[in-house]
């Protein structure tokens, strides 16, 4: 009997691992709809705005203004590309400092003209190159987060594919973070984590399971407010339907945020991130004062 229970536990464990890895693969699927696809479906009259106003335009981050229903919005998102040519142009969605600076200047534009900000997150991470590093990648990411934290306009981020590390988070300091069912969001790629902690990248599926990168897991941790349903098998099976669900979720989030005063929105956004984390603080009586935060609306 005990033996049987042990086997059952092992089987459940294996299933969790397979599920986690499957999600990673769907999130990276070649045909998965990208930021531009969501813009095409959800935003009318999109006008792309390029450049960081300093030195370059980074195609790994696209941005612009357009109509979401009857309201003008600013859209910024990582763009991965699908064909090899596209992927090369967009650098596989791995942004350089100029990409993050472009995002910053677009956020300023939105703030100046009271446009709600919609972001789409889909990147393996910030580009790890010499020029990027020496061009100030670290501070570019940090400043983008601070910039987002200071906005008084509504900010809704949607993780649509890979939410890879700081490069992803830089576009996700939002009032509401939505995440598609088969997207992932993680501090490090499973391969990177396995290479460091298991000392072998082949343990990526194990790392994927341990990192808890799936939408439902992040919902449990209070990191995302909503898991957006996808068509059976993943968004690539029916991009139109997937986009409709995303649009619905963004619309609902915006409607909620409209009820809040601008300065309060900003204060609550800060409070939202202040609460993220799990720790304990035994007081003099030995009680634990804090645990998983509950911050869902």
């Amino acid at each position, binding site marked *: 009997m005990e033996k049987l229970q042990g086997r059952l536990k092992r089987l459940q464990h294996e299933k969790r691992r397979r599920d986690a890895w499957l999600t990673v693969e769907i999130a990276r699927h070649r045909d998965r709809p990208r930021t531009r696809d969501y813009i095409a479906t959800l935003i009318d009259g999109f006008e792309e705005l390029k450049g960081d106003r300093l030195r370059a335009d980074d195609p790994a981050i696209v941005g612009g203004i357009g109509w979401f229903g009857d309201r003008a919005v600013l859209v910024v998102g990582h763009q991965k590309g699908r064909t090899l040519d596209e992927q090369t142009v967009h650098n596989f969605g791995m942004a350089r400092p100029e990409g993050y600076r472009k995002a910053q200047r677009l956020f300023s534009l939105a703030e100046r003209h009271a446009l709600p900000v919609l972001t789409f997150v889909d990147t393996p991470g910030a580009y790890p*190159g*010499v020029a990027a590093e020496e061009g100030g990648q670290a501070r570019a990411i940090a400043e983008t987060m601070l910039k987002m934290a200071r906005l008084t306009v509504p900010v809704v981020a949607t993780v649509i594919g890979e939410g890879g590390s700081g490069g992803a988070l830089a576009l996700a300091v939002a009032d509401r973070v939505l995440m598609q069912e088969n997207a992932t969001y993680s501090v*490090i790629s499973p391969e990177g984590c396995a290479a460091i902690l298991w*000392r072998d990248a082949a343990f990526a599926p194990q790392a994927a399971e341990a990192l808890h990168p799936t939408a439902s897991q992040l919902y449990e941790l209070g990191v995302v407010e909503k898991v957006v349903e996808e068509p059976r098998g993943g968004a690539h099976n029916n991009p139109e339907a997937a986009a409709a669900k995303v649009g619905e979720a963004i619309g609902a989030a915006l409607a909620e945020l409209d009820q809040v005063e601008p300065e309060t929105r900003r204060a*609550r956004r800060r409070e939202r991130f202040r609460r993220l984390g799990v720790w304990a603080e035994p007081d003099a009586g030995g009680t634990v004062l804090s645990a998983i935060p509950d911050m869902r609306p």
Partner: protein
Amino acid sequence: MSVTVEIERRDSRPAKPEWICPSCKDGARLADVRGNLFVCPYCGFHTRITAGERIRQLADPESFSELWPFVRTLDPLGFTDLEAYPDRVREAQAKTGLAEAIVTGSATIEGNACVLAVMDFGFLGGSMGSVVGEKLWRSAELAAAQDLPLVAVCSSGGARMQEGVLSLMQMAKTSCAVDVVNEAGTPFVAVLVDPCTGGVVASFATLADICIAEPGAKLYFSGPRVIQQTTREALPEGFSTAERNLELGHLDAVVPRKELKTKVGNYLRLLEGGDTPERRDTRRARGRSKRGLAQATADGARAIAALAWRSFVGGSGEAPGPPEEASAREETP
């Protein structure tokens, strides 16, 4: 000149050296090295030091009192790689005598009262998890509420992978903490020491009003190994060093350890604006608007100061205190 150095070296070299420089491999007596702030007396190499030693060097004697020593790490994901996360934490605690990778408290530096946060690379590579983020936040909140400057000594291998996405979120949380400090108009000085990388350098560390580093410190978001694996690019000479970062415009200054305390003291005095009433009034005015915003936060209006001092005053029991034993260590993350 080199002859003099040679002679001195031979004279002071003990039969069996207590300390060997990781850079020039020369040996010296520990007392001499400690007297030289754990900078190699021969080649000037700045070795990594513990949070305790850093506080001893930077804060005025007896001025540091630790805050929030009881904030403890949990294991939100039940993370196990080759070893379980709680075991790794316990080992790090036993090895360093610290509760976590950051020590926070109040102190004076050259007579300037401030909130001081010091990271320790020896504790799981100075990785930033929920506790580091929370203690940094509280430091910022306290600095803002008490109109004190914040000084952070940053050293980190990056995010604490074992806390998964929650460790990533600490980048956003600590960036928001900088917003709190900025809004209060109180100075924030960051000292980046070797190595300062990943999620820490891409969040609060580089958002400081003044950002300086020690000589030779390695500062990067993506490290040489990741760059070479991903792009196979050749790394330029001196890549990611403090000196190179200074040249590129990413730092205000590279400051040798010996001058660090004086420098930070000067910065604080200058940013505090001396005692001219105009500048004090400007800061007070900013402080008021800040408090207005804090109250707008739905449930953010709890008594900041009360929270800040509670664990300090009411504390007792088995939590590890401030690190007494200071020694130079060579760590690998």
